[in-house]
């Protein structure tokens, strides 16, 4: 009789263990495909890239001569790497500010009671649906053919050849990039705006808040999570800009619009300096991680405070 409860407990434990094992296997089976893709598609190439960054491999030969930290030392002396970083950082900073500002402005405008707002939203969002390569082609044609033709028609002499000069190529690319992506980020702000409870505005109104006060003390704090998404998204996206240049400027004139990714591709693949290109990639990954972590930490803290 004394043994019966112990036996029951034992059976119950066995049953629990079997259930846990079964649940574990189910979870494992669900994450396995994703884990495999992640491992083979990202983790292994990342490790290999890191390994190759210590070699002078040209990407073709069987031998991969080990050069230690030489590639990393060369990176800091390479004027083209520094120029590419300068361009990428300038592009990222301006892009992040301009794109967020206009996306928010458009979202607020199209959240109001204006006529045909759904049509406007669609129009602004449309460029986000096309590939960046196509966007590059469109703006190449726009600057070199369409806008000069309009110039001629109107008898004006505005310089639209923005891709053709080292001084104006950054502006040209920023216009093209913003044209393509503002609508996309606008939708995120719009969704966040529409999720703000109307009661908050009503309460603020009772408290005597002006339109500006409501925007500052209700809208902005409630948009904090959207700010985080948009700022991190635009920053990391801009740091990785590549496709737009492929079909528009080719990184030129000269190297005036060579982003860091463009330089990595050119160096590793066309230039047959795979090892050196890998060293550049490793530094880019480190920068991307650092920027994302700092931004997330800072913005999440703000979200809590708000």
């Amino acid at each position, binding site marked *: 009789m004394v043994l019966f409860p112990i036996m029951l407990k034992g059976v119950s434990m066995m049953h629990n263990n079997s259930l846990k094992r079964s649940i574990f296997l*189910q979870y494992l*089976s*669900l994450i*396995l*495909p*994703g884990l*495999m*893709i992640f491992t*083979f598609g990202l983790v292994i190439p990342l490790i290999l890239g890191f390994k190759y960054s210590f070699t002078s491999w040209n*990407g*073709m*030969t069987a031998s991969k001569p080990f050069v230690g930290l030489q590639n990393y030392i060369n990176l800091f002396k390479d004027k083209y790497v520094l120029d590419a970083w300068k361009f990428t950082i300038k592009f990222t900073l301006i892009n992040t500010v301009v794109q967020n500002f206009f996306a928010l402005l458009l979202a607020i405008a199209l959240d109001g009671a204006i006529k045909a707002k759904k049509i406007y939203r669609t129009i602004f969002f449309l460029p986000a649906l096309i590939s960046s390569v196509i966007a590059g082609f469109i703006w*190449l044609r726009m*600057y*070199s*053919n369409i806008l000069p033709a309009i110039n001629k028609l109107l008898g004006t002499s505005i310089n639209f*050849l923005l*891709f*053709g*000069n*080292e001084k104006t190529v950054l502006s040209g690319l920023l216009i093209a990039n913003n044209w393509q992506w503002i609508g996309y980020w606008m939708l995120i702000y719009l969704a966040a705006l529409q999720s703000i409870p109307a009661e908050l505005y009503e309460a603020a109104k009772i408290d005597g808040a002006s339109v500006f006060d409501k925007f500052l003390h209700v809208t902005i704090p409630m948009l904090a999570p959207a700010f985080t998404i948009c700022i991190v998204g635009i920053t990391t996206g801009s740091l990785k800009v590549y496709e737009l240049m492929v079909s528009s*400027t*080719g*990184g*030129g*004139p*000269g*190297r*005036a619009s060579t982003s860091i990714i463009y330089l990595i591709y*050119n*160096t590793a*693949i*066309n*230039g*047959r*300096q*795979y090892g050196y290109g890998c060293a550049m990639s490793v530094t880019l990954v480190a920068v991307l991680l650092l920027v994302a972590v700092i931004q997330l930490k800072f913005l999440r803290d703000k979200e809590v405070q708000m």
Partner: protein
Amino acid sequence: MNIKKTIAIMTTLTLTFTAMTGCGKKSSTETSGKADEKITLSVLAGQSTTDAGIEDMIDEALAKKYPNIKLQWECVDWGKDFQPKMQQYMQSGLPDIMIGKAQDIATYGSQGVLADLTGKSYVSNMLDAAVPGVTLNGKVYGVVYNALYQGVYYNKKIFKDNNIQIPKTLDELKAVCEKLKAKGITPFATHFIDGWSIGNITMQFAINDVFNKTPDWGDQLRAGKVSFAASPEYKNVYEYNKFIYDNTWKSETFSLQQTDCDARLVQGKAAMKVSGSWSIQNFLNVDEKFDFGIFPFPNQTGDSKLIFEPNITIMKSAKTKYSDAVDKVLEVMTTDKDLQLKIYNFTKTASMMKGVSPTFTNPSQADIDKYAKDNMIVDANLGNNQLKWGGFQEENAKDIASYLQGKMSLDGALKASDARKANSK
């Protein structure tokens, strides 16, 4: 619970299977063995601007003679994507056939990935003049199919109307430019938006000013015996770019695309263009009666030659499992006269096959024949095999563009070329 389990297992199996098949090596061949069994050969075609479309012609001709052989084409831009694709395939397995340029033989032949074609019957169908360009260490690694001519294309009507003679020296060319400018005609049509265009004309200048006199200049550079910065000849070469830039539509050239540029030459908005046969297709598309000629870009000593570039070059993978089938494709391409004529007339290029001459009207042919008769033609590989295109000539062209835009000094551009000499071959 059971349904959930079943769904989970099925999803897992599907995703795992998909992932594994994605990782598997793509087989280019369906079946092989017997002569009449279906074979699919993979082809990587690095094309010039003139070549897009010839793959359909080849498919058609092949289907008539060997209906069991199919070609699976991957057509890419030679300048931008051929090297990256080759680099990728050298790790994962090369396609059965590769189509590039003769200068690729030096790059890939030395890696041991190309099949030796020496003694194959189809090699003897190629013009003897083309053989040295595809020969490495005494072995033939490719079949050159057509050729491009490079030099200064000129609008004959403008030259005739203004009583301009073909310039042979740089001073004569400068006088021509002054005369044209005085008449309100832009001397040179350019599209410097394309970095390859700057790279190409720079090599044209260098072949006549540098490599014609010192064929091993690149080897000497790598050995530290010569340098860009200390070479008066190479300094001249870089300065010719500035000369062209000063005699073209400066504000537009870094925004103007090739098709628009070529159209302007045909329309008489410019008188000359330093280019290659790849422009002929554009010229004749704009106006099939456009009358144009070609002359070599004059050098300092007045003895420059017209440049001949072996273009479409067919290579065979050393490891192809279907060697016989690849040979059959090469046999069709080198013996089918109708196919050859079709390709030459479409691409508006010169034949490199014995007994075949294109039938399209090429107004510059008389000039080419004259320079050929006078032995004033030089192979572009003279320079291209000394200084490689990707990673070197291409990068130098970017510095030259910066020099033209005033962002870099001439000396700076020359020194930058010296700095990358380790990556010049």
